[in-house]
C-alpha cells in the first residue's frame, strides 16, 4: 500500500510546515470550523436577544457587538475562505491532474496570513468588541464608535492579502498545471467556478484593503478622508466598500455553484446538461458581479441616475444565475437519481438559491428597494444565498469528498437526516424574516415594535433545529474518522480525476498519470480502472 498524504499524522511540524495543498486544505477546514462556531455564537446571541422586543434579555450594547462579530467573522473568516480554501485547495490540483498548486509555499503563506488576520480580529472582538456592523460605515466607524475598530479592520486587511494570494495561486495553477490533454472545455465546473472566484479575489480585495487602510488612518489620526465635516465624502467609502463587498457575495456563492454541479452530475449519473453554458455563466457572474455594487446605495444619497444604471445591471445578473438553475434541473432529466446526503444538500441548494435569487429581484427593483432596504428582508435574502446556498454546498461537498479526504465513509442514513433537518430548520429560521422585512423591521435593531414579536419567535425557534443540523454532521463526521468503514478509491463511482487516485491520495496525488476522459463528466462511460 502507498503512503497517503496523511502520514505522518500526528507530527505537528509536518502540518505547520507543510506545502502540500491537501494538508493546507485541512488546516483551513479545521480553522474555519472554529471560526464558524464563533460566528454562530454571535448568531445565537442575536436570536436570543430578539425573543424580547424591548432588549430585556440582552443589552443593546451587547446586541450591537454580537451582530458585528457575527458578520465580520462569518463573512471574512468563514464564507470567503470556506469552499475555495478548503475544498478548492484540496481538489483543484487533483481535478486537473496536477501534483500541487503552482506556488505551494505561497499557499502556506496564505494560510498563515489568514490565521494572523483572524487572530487579530478575534482579539478585537474578545477584548471589548466592535459595534459598527460588518460594513464599517463612516463616519460612525471613524469618528464616533468607541470600540476596537482599528484592530478588527487590521485583521480583515491581513486576511485580505491571504485572499489575494490564494486567488493568484488558483489562477496560475489553472493555466499552468493542467495535465496533458486536460483542455479548458474538459475542466470540471468546480474548477471553472474557482477560476471565476479567483478573478474576484484578485481584483476586488485590493480595493477593500486600501479602503479599510484609509479608514484606519482617518480614525487613528482624526483626519478626514471620508468624514464630511473634514471635506470627505462618506458615499465614496460606500462605493469602495461595496466594490469589494458585492463581488464578495459571488466569492461566497460561485464555488458553491461549482460544487453543486459536481454533485448533481454524480448523483444523477449523467454528464452535466449544458456544460458550456454553466461554465460561461460562472465567468459571466464573476465579471458582471463587479458592476452592481450601487444597488446597496439606492437610498444612501446616490444620484438617481446612477441608481437606475445599477438597478438594470442588477437585473442582468439574474440571467447567468437562471441559466445555472435551468441546467442543473435539466441534468436530472433522464438521469438515474439517488438521494444520498450530498445530493440532498445539492438539491436543497438549488431550491434555496432560487428563492434567494428571486428575492434579489425585489431588492434590485428601485422603488421596492426603497421600502425594503436595510430591513430584515435583506437579511433573509442574503442568508438564503449564504446559508441556504453556500453552506449547503459546502456540507454537500464535504460529505461527497469525505472518503477521498479522510479515507473513511460517513454514516449515510444519519447524514440524510441531518441534511433534511438543516433544510427545515433553515426555512423556519429565515423565511419569517422576509415577512418581517416587508412589515418594516429594520436590521440591526435590538428593540422592535411589539407586533413583530411572533415572527421573531418563530425565527428564533428555527435556530434550534438549524443548530442541530450543524451539530449532527460535526459529530458523526468526527466519529467516522475513527469508526467509519474504510473507503475504496472511488466509492461513489464518480468520474472526476480525483477519484482515479487512492483514498486518501498519496502526497504526490497521482502515482501514475490519470486518464483524461474525452469529455467532461463521462457518466455515460465506465470509469477507467
Amino acid at each position, binding site marked *: 500500500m502507498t503512503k497517503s498524504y496523511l502520514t505522518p499524522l500526528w507530527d505537528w511540524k509536518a502540518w505547520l510546515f507543510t506545502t502540500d495543498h491537501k494538508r493546507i486544505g485541512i488546516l483551513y477546514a479545521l480553522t474555519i470550523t472554529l471560526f464558524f462556531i464563533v460566528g454562530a455564537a454571535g448568531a445565537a446571541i442575536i436570536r436570543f436577544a430578539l425573543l424580547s422586543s424591548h432588549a430585556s434579555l440582552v443589552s443593546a450594547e451587547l446586541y450591537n457587538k454580537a451582530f458585528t462579530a457575527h458578520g465580520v467573522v462569518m463573512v471574512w473568516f468563514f464564507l470567503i475562505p470556506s469552499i475555495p480554501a478548503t475544498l478548492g485547495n484540496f481538489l483543484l490540483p487533483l481535478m486537473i491532474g496536477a501534483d500541487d498548486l503552482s506556488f505551494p509555499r505561497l499557499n502556506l503563506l496564505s494560510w498563515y496570513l489568514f490565521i494572523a488576520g483572524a487572530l487579530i480580529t478575534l482579539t478585537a472582538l474578545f477584548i471589548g468588541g466592535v459595534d459598527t456592523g460588518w460594513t464599517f460605515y463612516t463616519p460612525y466607524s471613524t469618528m464616533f464608535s468607541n470600540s476596537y475598530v482599528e484592530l478588527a479592520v487590521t485583521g480583515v486587511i491581513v486576511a485580505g492579502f491571504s485572499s489575494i494570494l490564494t486567488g493568484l495561486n488558483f*489562477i496560475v495553477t489553472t493555466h*499552468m498545471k493542467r495535465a496533458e490533454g486536460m483542455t479548458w472545455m474538459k475542466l470540471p465546473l468546480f474548477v471553472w467556478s474557482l477560476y471565476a472566484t479567483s478573478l474576484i479575489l484578485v481584483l476586488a480585495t*485590493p480595493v477593500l484593503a486600501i479602503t479599510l487602510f484609509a479608514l484606519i488612518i482617518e480614525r487613528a489620526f482624526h483626519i478626514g478622508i471620508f468624514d464630511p465635516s473634514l471635506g470627505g465624502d462618506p458615499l465614496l467609502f460606500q462605493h469602495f466598500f461595496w466594490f469589494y463587498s458585492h463581488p464578495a457575495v459571488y466569492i461566497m456563492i460561485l464555488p458553491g455553484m461549482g460544487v453543486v454541479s459536481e454533485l448533481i452530475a454524480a448523483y444523477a449519473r449523467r454528464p452535466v446538461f449544458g456544460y458550456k453554458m454553466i461554465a460561461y455563466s460562472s465567468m459571466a457572474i464573476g465579471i458582471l458581479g463587479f458592476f452592481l455594487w450601487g444597488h446597496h446605495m439606492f437610498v444612501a444619497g446616490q444620484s438617481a441616475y446612477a441608481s437606475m444604471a445599477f438597478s438594470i445591471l442588477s437585473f442582468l445578473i439574474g440571467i447567468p444565475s437562471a441559466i445555472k438553475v435551468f441546467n442543473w434541473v435539466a441534468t436530472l432529466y433522464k438521469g438515474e437519481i439517488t438521494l444520498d446526503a450530498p445530493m440532498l444538500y445539492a438539491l436543497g441548494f438549488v431550491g434555496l438559491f432560487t428563492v434567494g435569487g428571486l428575492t434579489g429581484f425585489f431588492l434590485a427593483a428601485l422603488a421596492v428597494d426603497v421600502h425594503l432596504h436595510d430591513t430584515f428582508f435583506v437579511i433573509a435574502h442574503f442568508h438564503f444565498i449564504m446559508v441556504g446556498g453556500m453552506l449547503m454546498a459546502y456540507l454537500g461537498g464535504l460529505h461527497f469528498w469525505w472518503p477521498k479526504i479522510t479515507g473513511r465513509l460517513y454514516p449515510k442514513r444519519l447524514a440524510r437526516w441531518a441534511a433534511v433537518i438543516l433544510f427545515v430548520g433553515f426555512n423556519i429560521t429565515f423565511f419569517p424574516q422576509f415577512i418581517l422585512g416587508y412589515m418594516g423591521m429594520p436590521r440591526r435593531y435590538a428593540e422592535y415594535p411589539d407586533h413583530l414579536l411572533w415572527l421573531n419567535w418563530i425565527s428564533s425557534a428555527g435556530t434550534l433545529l438549524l443548530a442541530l443540523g450543524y451539530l449532527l454532521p460535526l459529530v458523526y463526521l468526527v466519529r467516522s474518522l475513527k469508526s467509519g468503514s474504510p473507503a475504496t478509491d472511488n466509492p461513489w463511482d464518480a468520474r472526476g480525476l480525483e477519484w482515479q487516485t487512492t483514498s486518501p491520495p498519496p502526497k504526490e496525488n497521482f502515482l501514475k498519470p490519470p486518464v483524461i476522459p474525452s469529455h467532461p463528466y463521462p457518466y455515460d462511460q465506465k470509469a477507467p480502472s
Partner: protein
Amino acid sequence: MKNRVPAGLLGMWVFLASEVLFFSTLILAFWVYRHEWPVEFSDGVRHMDLIAGSVNTAVLLTSSWTMALALASSPRWKGRLLVLTAFLGAVFLVIKGSEYFMHARDGMLPPISWSPPQSAPAFKLFFILYFLITGLHALHLSIGIGCVLWARLRMALRREVSETLLENLGLYWHFVDIVWIFLFPLFYLIGGHA
C-alpha cells in the same frame, strides 16, 4: 501560453493586476475629491515643488531604463546595472524624503505638523491624500530596491538567480514606475497653473 510562459511570470502579472486595482482606488479617490474641491486642490498642487517632482520623474524613468538594460545585458553588466537601478531608486526616495521634510517644515504634514497657509479642510485633505498615496508608492519602491539588492547579492555569492526571478523584478520595477507616471501629473501638474 502554458508552454511559453513560466508560471512565475504569469503569477507576477496576476499580482500586478491586483496592484493596479489597489492604486486605481487611491487615484480615483483623489480624482473625485479634486472634482469636489477644485480650488483647494489647485492650491495644494501649487505648494508642490515642481522641479523636485520633475527631476524625480526623470530619475525613476532612468531607473526603468537601466533595469530594462540590465535584463537585456550580458552577465558582466547585469550586476552593475542592477546596482545602478537600485541606486536611482534610492535617489528618488531621498528627493521624495527631502520634499516631505520641506512640507513638514512648512507645517503641511498632517497630522504631525499642521499649520498650513490656508485652513480649508479640503486643503488638508489634499495633503492627506498626497502623503498616503506617495507614501504607499515609496513603500513599493523600497521593497523593489530591497529585492533588487537581494538578487544582486545572490549573484555575487554565486547562488542561483533564475531568469524568471529577474524578469519579475523588472516587471515589478516598471510597474512602480508606471504608478509614478500617473501620480506625477496628478500631484504636480494639473491645476498648478494659476
